[in-house]
């Protein structure tokens, strides 16, 4: 996928491990805050969720994600790096569909920036889902 903010299919444990090595060479980063969103096997009126198929307006995702990163960096000056990856395509229940990682000098800005990034991803990223039962 040509878009650094999107990945085809689930965000696998292997991909998570790889993403988490980013910034490992920054010895000024004392705090790493990570949020991973996963597909739940919710029981609904239509049955138990087996998977979610995500779609995105890929050409718009980059601009919006870059705007989120800009806002986070401006609001939390101690932040050193921001990683956002969202799945497109089918992600089964139990698998991850969203990865956010913030590295920061100290914990305060990092944990707050992580939560803020998460809220903005939900609000700003042009992504849609369709449950598969």
């Amino acid at each position, binding site marked *: 996928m040509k878009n650094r903010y999107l990945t085809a299919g689930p965000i696998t444990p292997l991909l998570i491990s790889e993403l988490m090595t980013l910034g490992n060479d920054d010895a000024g980063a004392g705090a790493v805050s990570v949020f991973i969103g996963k597909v739940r096997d919710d029981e609904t009126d239509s049955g138990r969720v087996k998977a979610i198929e*995500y779609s995105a*307006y890929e050409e718009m995702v980059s601009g919006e994600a870059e705007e989120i990163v800009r806002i986070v960096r401006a609001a939390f000056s101690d932040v050193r790096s921001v990683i956002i990856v969202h799945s497109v395509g089918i992600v089964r229940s139990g698998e991850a*569909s969203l990865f956010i990682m913030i590295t920061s000098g100290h914990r305060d800005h990092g944990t707050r920036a992580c939560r803020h990034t998460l809220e903005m*991803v*939900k609000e700003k990223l042009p992504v*849609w889902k369709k449950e598969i039962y």
Partner: protein
Amino acid sequence: MGVEVRILYFGAAQEAAGKSEELLTADNTTTLRTAILEKYPALAGIPFRMALNRNLLKGDSLLAENDIIAILPPFQGG
């Protein structure tokens, strides 16, 4: 009158329109919105926003040849 623009349908709007894209003619985004709602009544149930050339529309905008309009149901990422 009006110019030809490309319309992209996403998420539930894609299902309501029965297609992912098409070409339509309009002179501004407000008349375009009305035309789309008339063409696809099922879209009335979706509180969609529109993006013009990848930027979320705020208010009305005139259209130019080759503009890309995206029909965006509420985002559901995360």
